């Protein structure tokens, strides 16, 4: 059972729908106990970094960090990936999980923001999340803040500068793009996560 964490940020239906399509068993939950009982965790999210504050009040933050650190496969999508870093300039008083170093920042002013559309990925060959995904595959992004390229970057994209399209460290994965909206490439990435 994959737990999709519902903390009131945006629309989780499309993430659930993609896993349903792949035949995975998923549950939407806002309960730390359900997260603890699940075999895998997905933290989705769109919108403002401040909405991650909801994780703190509910005890979800602690449950997510504990379970991810204990080796349970974890996938953060968009805002859910940004949360894996130390924080974001978008909302300085909400802390990220700090499982990856650095803070998310706004795109430079010489490019349009938000960064919306299909951009290509430069993929690290050793990545488990991108197994079988061709170099320069296109995925769908929509975001105004980006996470820095770090040692654990599994795939990078370029928009005014290079940023982390995906991160991967052991069982912990994050994608800035929306695999549930990235056609067959996105479904292949979610399938890889299901099979981790």
């Amino acid at each position: 059972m994959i737990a999709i964490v519902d903390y009131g940020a945006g629309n989780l239906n499309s993430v659930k729908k993609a896993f349903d399509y792949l035949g995975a068993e998923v549950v939407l939950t806002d309960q730390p106990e359900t997260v603890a009982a699940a075999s895998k965790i997905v933290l989705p999210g769109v919108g403002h970094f401040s909405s991650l504050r909801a994780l703190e009040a509910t005890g979800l933050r602690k449950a997510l960090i504990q379970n991810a650190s204990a080796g349970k496969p974890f996938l953060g999508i968009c805002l859910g990936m940004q949360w894996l870093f130390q924080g974001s300039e978008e909302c300085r008083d909400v802390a990220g999980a700090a499982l990856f170093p650095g803070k998310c920042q706004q795109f430079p002013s010489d490019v349009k923001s938000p960064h919306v559309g299909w951009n290509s990925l430069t993929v690290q060959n050793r990545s488990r999340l991108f197994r079988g995904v061709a170099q320069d595959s296109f995925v769908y992004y929509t975001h105004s803040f980006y996470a820095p390229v770090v040692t654990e970057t599994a795939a990078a994209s370029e928009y005014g500068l290079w940023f982390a399209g995906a991160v991967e460290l052991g069982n912990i994965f994050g994608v800035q793009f929306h695999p549930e909206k990235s056609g067959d490439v996105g479904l292949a990435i979610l399938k890889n996560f299901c099979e981790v």
Partner: protein
Amino acid sequence: MLTKRIIACLDMDGGRVVKGVRFKNLRDAGDPAECATAHARNGADEIVLLDITATSGNRRTLLDAVRGTARSLFVPFTVGGGIRRLEDAVAVFDAGADKIAINSAAVRDPALIGKIAGRFGSQAVVVAIDARKVAGGFEVFVAGGREPTGRDAIQWAREAAACGAGEILLTSMDRDGTQSGFDCGLVRAVAESVSIPVIASGGAGSARDFIEVFRDGRADAALAASIFHFGIENIAQLKRELHNASVPVRWPC
């Protein structure tokens, strides 16, 4: 590299996809779910579903169509038509839309943009603008192009962006359904005035029109309906031609 998006638009009336010329003379073009998946398979980067005769009576029809279409569609899906209040938007998101498009309601109450963006994020709010050339500029029309507002399209696009819109869907009423090319002047004027992406709409007839609106119009995306539905321009073929003309597109996809 970020690519230019090709968006297939489904204009829906009473649960069926239709297409007219200059917002009139509607022809049947099929079932929304079938049309959407066919376009996605063919390379469409996004799907927009617009309920063009939206009334409170057929909300259920729209929501059923959204639900049916969203089930097997794994590219971004925008829904518009008759969204007047936050609750209308919530129902459409719940049915499976990724973004909503608002037009008349946003002109009447610009605060609605911020309300929806506050709940679902700016990336989920597309402000649609129907504009017609008038002496000295472009005027915004509402109510499916029937009512002039006296407002300048470029000013309104700026205001919509400031209110929290994530994208502008800009339709030239003069070109809609004519297949005589996008209004590159209009598109460029708006694209250079706002820092959010602009989707050009109205007038697509050939690959050359798309190349022009991306190069001269500075559009981030281009939307078309009739030329895709009736097989005049195949999306896969269109993308191949754009790629050959060095316009960055998701190809192969």
